[in-house]
C-alpha cells in the first residue's frame, strides 16, 4: 500500500507502529488511519501526479527529428504534483489545464499557476524541422486535440482528421469543429530558431509578482542594447540584400550573388538566436519568469474542413463545437470572442458526460489493482475491450463525481475495499479458470515502476532527499539545445542520473531517457499512456549488476547497516529488514551466512566490499522490485 499511494517503501519504524495500531484499534481502523496519513503526505502527489504525467505525455523536449529541449516544462510537472496534493477536484484540474488562461484569478501567484497549468497543451511532441508553418500549426492543434480526447475521454477523435472515424462515432465535421478551438489558440513553447530548429516558439511570460524561481541568467542592459543593435543590423542587411537582389534580377544580373541561400540561412539562424535571447529578459536585461502554456489568439477562427486532412485542400468552414455523439443538455455554447476551450473543458466535466469520470475511475483502479476494469486504458471505443465489471465501474464513477471529483476519496474507497485487501496467493483452480485474474480472485502481483525501484534503493540506502529540487536538469544545465548533442557534454552524466531526489524529478527527454527509466518501462513520453508495460530482459539485470547508480546505493546501504547494527549477523539481518520489510527466514539466514563463509581472513576493506556485494545482491533480487 505504501508503494501504491506514495511510491516508497515503509520504514521499519512505520511498520512496527502500524502493527501496534492493529493490535490496539483493530485492522480496519488501523488501515483507514494509515491510508489517510499517506493520502495527506506530500509524497502522494509525487506518486499520483506522475500517473497523470504519464497520461499528459509530459516531457522536457520536443521529440521527433530535431528533439530540442524545453527548459520550462518542469513548471507544469510541479503544478501537477501540487494540484494532486492540494486535492484539487479532478474537474477543476482538467478545466485549469485546458483553459487556465481564460479563468479569473485573485492575484499574480494564482494567475501564474493557471498559466502554467495550460502547459498540458504545450508540452507535446513537435516537429521543429517542419518548414511549412501552416502544416506545423495544424499538427500542433491535432496533437492537442488528440491528447485531450485520449487523456480525458479515452477516445481517438483525431482519427477523423482525414476521414470519418472508421469504428467510433466521430465525423470529420466533429474533428474540425473541435480543432478550431486549438487553431484559435497560440502555443508558447519557448525554443529559439537555430540550425536544428526551424520553428521558433515564444515562451510564456509569467506575472513577475508571482515570484516564480528563474533558472536562466540576467544579461544586463548593455548586452540587451548590443543584441538589439546586432538584430537591427541583420534586419537591415537582409533588406539591403533583398533590394540588391531585386535590382540584379531586373537588370538581368545574378540575383543569387547578391543574396545567396547561405546568407539567408545565416541571417535567419543568427536573428532567431538573438530573438530567443531577448525574449528571456526584460528591457533592462533582467531574466523573466518563463513557462510553457497557451493563450487565445487575437483572431478566433472557424477552420475549414480539410479534405483528407490536406492543408492545401480547404473546404467549407465548420463552426466551432464539440463532438455531437454526446448531447449534453444545457452545456455551454462556444463564445464568439474566445477560442471556446473553457466551454469545451466545462462540457468534458459536465456530470452528464458519459466518459470523463469513468475513464478517470478506471485509471485509478488500474494503478491500485494492476489492470483496469476496462483494460484498454486509453481506448473506450469500439476497438477497446469491454469492462470486466461494468456496474462496478458505473457505481464508482458516479460516486467519484458526487464526492466532488476527489481523487483522494476515490483512492481511499478502493484501497479500503475487500478486493484490494485480498492476498496475492496462488490457487490452482482459480488460475486454471482465469489466469489473467479478470475476475479479481487475488491481488495482482506487480513489478514496481521504474521510479519506485530507484526511489526504494535510495530509501533503503538512507540517501533519499525528499525535498523538491528547483527545476530539473533540463532547466538548470541542459537549457534549450538539441538532445542529440548532450552526450558530447562531459558535465552531464551519461545516464542523466546524478541526483538523490525522487525519480519524478529526473529529466524526461523524449528518446533520451535516464537509464533507469528507459530500462524499466517508463511511459513513452510522446504518447498518452494509461498503462505501462512490464518487460523482463537481461539489460535490466545488467543495470542492477553493473551500473554505477546501483553500485553506489549498495555501498551506501552497506555503510548504513554497519553504522546501525553492531555485529555481523545483525547487519545481515538488518539489511534484509530494510530491503524487504521483513526478517529473513531460516533458509535465507543460511544463504546469507554462506555468502560470507566462503571468504576467510578478510581485511576491513575486503569485508566492506563483500558487505556491499551482499547488499547489492539484495537490491537485485526479484523480491525487491515485485509487490505481492
Amino acid at each position, binding site marked *: 500500500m505504501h508503494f501504491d499511494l506514495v511510491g516508497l517503501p515503509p520504514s521499519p519504524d512505520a511498520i512496527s507502529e502500524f502493527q501496534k495500531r492493529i493490535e490496539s484499534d483493530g485492522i480496519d481502523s488501523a488501515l483507514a488511519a494509515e491510508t489517510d496519513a499517506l493520502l495527506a503526505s506530500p509524497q502522494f502527489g509525487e506518486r499520483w501526479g506522475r500517473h497523470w504525467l504519464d497520461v499528459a505525455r509530459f516531457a522536457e523536449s520536443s521529440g521527433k527529428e530535431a528533439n530540442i529541449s524545453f527548459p520550462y516544462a518542469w513548471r507544469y510537472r510541479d503544478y501537477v504534483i501540487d494540484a494532486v496534493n492540494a486535492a484539487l477536484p479532478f474537474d477543476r484540474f482538467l478545466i485549469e489545464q485546458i483553459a487556465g488562461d481564460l479563468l479569473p484569478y485573485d492575484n499574480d501567484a494564482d494567475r501564474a499557476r493557471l498559466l502554467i497549468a495550460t502547459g498540458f497543451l504545450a508540452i507535446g511532441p513537435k516537429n521543429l524541422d517542419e518548414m511549412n508553418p501552416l502544416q506545423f500549426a495544424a499538427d500542433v492543434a491535432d496533437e492537442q486535440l488528440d491528447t485531450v480526447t485520449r487523456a480525458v475521454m479515452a477516445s481517438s477523435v483525431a482519427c477523423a482528421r482525414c476521414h470519418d472515424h472508421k469504428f467510433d462515432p466521430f465525423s470529420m465535421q466533429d474533428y474540425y469543429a473541435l480543432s478550431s478551438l486549438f487553431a484559435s489558440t497560440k502555443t508558447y513553447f519557448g525554443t529559439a530558431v537555430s540550425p536544428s530548429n526551424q520553428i521558433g516558439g515564444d515562451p510564456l511570460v509569467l506575472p513577475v509578482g508571482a515570484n516564480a524561481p528563474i533558472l536562466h541568467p540576467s544579461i544586463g542592459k548593455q548586452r540587451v542594447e548590443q543584441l538589439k543593435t546586432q538584430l537591427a543590423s541583420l534586419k537591415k542587411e537582409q533588406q539591403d540584400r533583398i533590394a540588391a537582389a531585386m535590382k540584379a534580377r531586373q537588370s538581368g544580373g545574378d540575383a543569387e550573388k547578391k543574396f545567396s541561400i547561405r546568407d539567408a540561412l545565416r541571417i535567419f539562424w543568427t536573428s532567431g538566436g538573438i530573438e530567443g535571447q531577448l525574449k528571456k529578459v526584460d528591457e533592462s536585461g533582467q531574466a523573466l519568469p518563463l513557462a510553457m502554456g497557451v493563450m487565445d489568439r487575437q483572431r478566433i477562427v472557424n477552420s475549414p474542413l480539410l479534405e*483528407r486532412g490536406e492543408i492545401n485542400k480547404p473546404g467549407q468552414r465548420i463552426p466551432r463545437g464539440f463532438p455531437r455523439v454526446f448531447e449534453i443538455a444545457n452545456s455551454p455554447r462556444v463564445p464568439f470572442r474566445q477560442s471556446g476551450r473553457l466551454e469545451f473543458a466545462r462540457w468534458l466535466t459536465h456530470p452528464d458526460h458519459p466518459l470523463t469520470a469513468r475513464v478517470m475511475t478506471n485509471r485509478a483502479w488500474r494503478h491500485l489493482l494492476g489492470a483496469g476494469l476496462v483494460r484498454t486504458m486509453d481506448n473506450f471505443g469500439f476497438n477497446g475491450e469491454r469492462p470486466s465489471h461494468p456496474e462496478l465501474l458505473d457505481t464508482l464513477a458516479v460516486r467519484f463525481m458526487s464526492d466532488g471529483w476527489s481523487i483522494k476519496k476515490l483512492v481511499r474507497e478502493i484501497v479500503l475495499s475487500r478486493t484490494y485487501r485480498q492476498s496475492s496467493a496462488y490457487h490452482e483452480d482459480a488460475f486454471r479458470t482465469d489466469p489473467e485474474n479478470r475476475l479479481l480472485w487475488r491481488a495482482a502481483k506487480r513489478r514496481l515502476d521504474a521510479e519506485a525501484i530507484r526511489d526504494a534503493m535510495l530509501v533503503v540506502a538512507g540517501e533519499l532527499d525528499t525535498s523538491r529540487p528547483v527545476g530539473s536538469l533540463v532547466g538548470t544545465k541542459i537549457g534549450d539545445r538539441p538532445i*542529440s548533442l548532450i*552526450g558530447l557534454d562531459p558535465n552531464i552524466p551519461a545516464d542523466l542520473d546524478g541526483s538523490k531526489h525522487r525519480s519524478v524529478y529526473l529529466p524526461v527527454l523524449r528518446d533520451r531517457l535516464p*537509464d533507469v527509466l528507459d530500462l524499466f518501462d517508463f511511459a513513452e513520453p510522446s504518447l498518452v499512456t494509461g498503462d505501462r508495460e512490464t518487460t523482463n530482459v537481461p539489460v535490466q539485470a545488467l543495470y542492477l549488476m553493473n551500473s554505477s547508480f546501483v553500485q553506489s546505493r549498495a555501498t551506501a546501504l552497506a555503510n548504513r547497516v554497519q553504522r546501525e547494527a553492531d555485529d555481523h549477523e545483525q547487519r545481515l539481518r538488518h539489511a534484509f529488514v530494510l530491503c524487504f520489510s521483513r526478517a529473513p527466514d531460516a533458509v535465507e539466514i543460511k*544463504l546469507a551466512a554462506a*555468502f560470507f563463509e*566462503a571468504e576467510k581472513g578478510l581485511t576491513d576493506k575486503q569485508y566492506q566490499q563483500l558487505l556491499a556485494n*551482499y547488499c547489492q545482491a539484495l537490491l537485485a533480487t526479484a523480491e525487491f522490485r515485485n509487490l505481492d
Partner: protein
Amino acid sequence: MTTPHSDSRSTSLLSRRHVLKSCASGFGYLAFAGLAHEAAAARDGGLAPQATHFPARAKRVIFLCMNGGPSHVDLLDYKPSLNQHSGDSSPIGRGRGGAKLLGSPFRFAQRGESGLWMSEVFPELGKQADELCVINSMQTDLPNHSQAFLQMHCGSFQFVRPSVGAWTLYGLGTENTNLPGFVTINPPSDNGGARNYGSGFLPAISQGTRVGTNQIPAFYAALLRKDQEPGPPLKNIENKNLSREQQRAQLDLVRSLNRHKLERDVHHPEIEGAIESFELAFRMQDEVPDVLDLRSEPESIFKLYGVGSGLPTDRFGRQCILARRLAESGVRFIEITAPVGWDHHFLLKDELTKSTLATDRPIAALLTDLKQRGLLHDTLVVWAGEFGRTPYAQSGNGRDHNNKGYSIWMAGGGVKAGLTYGATDEFGYEAVEKPVHIHDWHATILHLLGLDHERLTFNYGGRDFRLTDVYGNVATEILA
C-alpha cells in the same frame, strides 16, 4: 530433449517446481542452488535448443522491418496500367470518392536472370534479384499503423500476444546461451512499443532484447567526425568493481534468494523470468562486447555496407553489420527497424528516394555478405512493412495506407529464389491472386524454421494458443 509442444513443456515447468520443492530446505537446497549454470539452463529449458517438428530449412531469421508501410507500387509491384491511367479518377477503394490514380514516378526494370520487376530506387538490391522471393499479394486486417504493426509482429492486435520472434525462440531455443536468442535493433516506441518484441504469456526469457538507439544526427556526425551511434549500443555490460568470481558468488546468492521466493509463491512468472535473465546477463558480459564492437570489421566491409561519416547509409549499414555478427554468433531471431520512415502521405517521390537510398546498399551488402560466409542458405532474411500504399494519390503527391494488397520479400533459408508469388489487381490495390495473409506468412516462416504452426502451441488459461490463432496456410509454392 523435449519437443516444443505444450503438454511436454508445461510438464517440464511443473516438474521444475517439484524439484524446487523437494530441495527447498537445508543443505540440499544450498547444494541445488550452487549448481553450475549450464545444468540449470538445460533443465530450465528456457533457452536450450529444441527439436524441430520436421527438418528446418532456416536456422535463424533476420527481419528487416520497414516501419510505416512502404509503397509496393513504387518498389516491387510493377503496374503499367497504373502509369497509363495516372491522373484518372480512381475506380477502386476509398479513392472512388474522387481521388486520382497516381502512376509511379519511378522506372521499373526486370533484374537478374529471373527477371524480377524492381524499381530504379533499388539499384543495389536489383543485383541480388536472383536471391529474392517477392510476394506481391500480402494482406493484413487494418490500414492503421499501430494495429497493422502489431499484427505483423504478433498475429493479433486486439490482445497481448507473443511476437513472432518470441515464438521462434520458444520453438527452437538458442544455439548460443551467452547471448539473448532474440535481439531487436532500434525498435520504435510507438505502434505497440515493447509488445512487438514481447513474450506475452510465453516464458519471459523469450522476449526480445533491445539494443542501440543512441544516435546523433548525420549532419553533426559528419561535422564532428564522430560515429553516428557513439558509445556501446548496450550499456552496463562491464563491471568495474568485481572480478568474475566475485560477481558469480554474488549472483549465486541472488539466484538462491529468487528461487527460494519462487518456491514460496508457486506461480510467479516475473521471478522465473528474473532468474533466467540474470543468468543470461552474466554470460552476456563475456561475449556481447566483442559481438557489438564493429571496430574489428575490415575497411572493405564498411565500404560494402556504406558505413562512413556523413553517408546516408551509415546508420543502417552499421545495424546490418551488427545483424550479421549476431547471426554468426548464433542469435535465433534478429530484427532491425530501419531508421527511416516509409509513411509517405506527402512528397512520395523525394521521401521514398531518401528512404531507399539509406537502405538499398546496406541490405544488398547484407545478402552478399551472408552468402560469402555461407550463411544465407540457412538464414531467412525477411523485408516487410506493416502494409502497402494506395495506387491513388493523397495530397497530390503522396499515397494513403493500403492493407488489401502489398509486397514483401524473403531470401535465403529455404525460399525459392528469383520467384514472384501472387498478384494484385491491375492497379495494385487488392491482392487477387494467391493472397497471403499475415497468418499465412507467419505459418510459412515457422514452416521454414522446421516448426508446424498448428503444433507450436502454449497452454495458457486452459487453451492452447498459436501464433496463427486458428488461421494460417503455409504458402507451399514458395518453398525451395
